[in-house]
């Protein structure tokens, strides 16, 4: 069986990225191991150990070019689900986070887009609640 347990996002500066993804976004640090000049850093959503996000150095010029081009086109490179997008938007805005899109309903989801200060645009989305959806 092939499983999805690890995914990654390229970041400009790993130390700054760890601070933003934990202090501002609220993820929990899972691993932080030195690897040569770089670090192996993963974070998880609080209380959820099943999927790790690696904060990958964007030192490869090809990766950086891709990241910058997507950013300039306003295209997010990751999407995180939230329960209350209006509250998260307000909370992040208070931290000084720059949004390129305020919470906007689009079909079955409400989405917002912000800059992660590490070279990426990130989409937040809140699915429309359907009937007795409980978790």
């Amino acid at each position, binding site marked *: 069986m092939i499983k999805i347990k690890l995914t990654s996002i390229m970041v400009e500066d790993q130390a700054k990225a760890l601070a933003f993804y934990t202090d501002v976004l609220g993820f929990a640090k899972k691993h932080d191991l030195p690897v040569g000049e770089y670090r*192996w850093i993963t974070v998880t959503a609080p209380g959820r150990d099943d999927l790790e996000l690696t904060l990958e150095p964007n030192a490869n010029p090809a990766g950086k070019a891709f990241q910058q081009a997507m950013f300039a086109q306003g295209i997010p490179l990751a999407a995180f689900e939230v329960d209350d997008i209006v509250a998260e938007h307000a909370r992040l805005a208070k931290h000084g986070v*720059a949004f390129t899109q305020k919470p906007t309903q689009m079909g079955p989801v409400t989405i917002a887009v912000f800059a992660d200060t590490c070279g990426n645009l990130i989409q937040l989305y809140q699915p429309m609640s359907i009937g007795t959806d409980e978790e």
Partner: protein
Amino acid sequence: MLIDRASLRRLCRARELLEHDGQPVAEVARLVGISPFHFIRQFDALFGETPHQYRTRARLDRAKQLLARGHSVTDTCMEVGFSSVGSFSQLFARHVGAPPSAYRRRGVQVATSLVHPGCFSLMCWLPAAAFRNSREAHVARVGQGRPA
């Protein structure tokens, strides 16, 4: 802070100018049509550092690449846009933690493997405990698990 599509494009253009050209920050702001005050504030919110910090880091990153490929300190200094080798060396040492000459010696040795890592290629340097599966396997073997 809300940054509309037009401002996003301008700020990205400014980032390119900062990375590849040598104009003063105020001139870059003028070229992209944003007042210097808003330019610095919006740039910082979007990219996590001021235009000046961004340019310095971009130059030093480029310097690291050139040094690791074996370019001389003087050539690197001129190539990335600094005019004085002395101030370049000081700035480099402060940000990178080693003077350019030392970085160059060390860089040439490891350049082939680690200069441009892909993140998943870093895995082979990790201890086994960094992997969830290895812990699961251990738990399955030992029969006593402690959730992280």
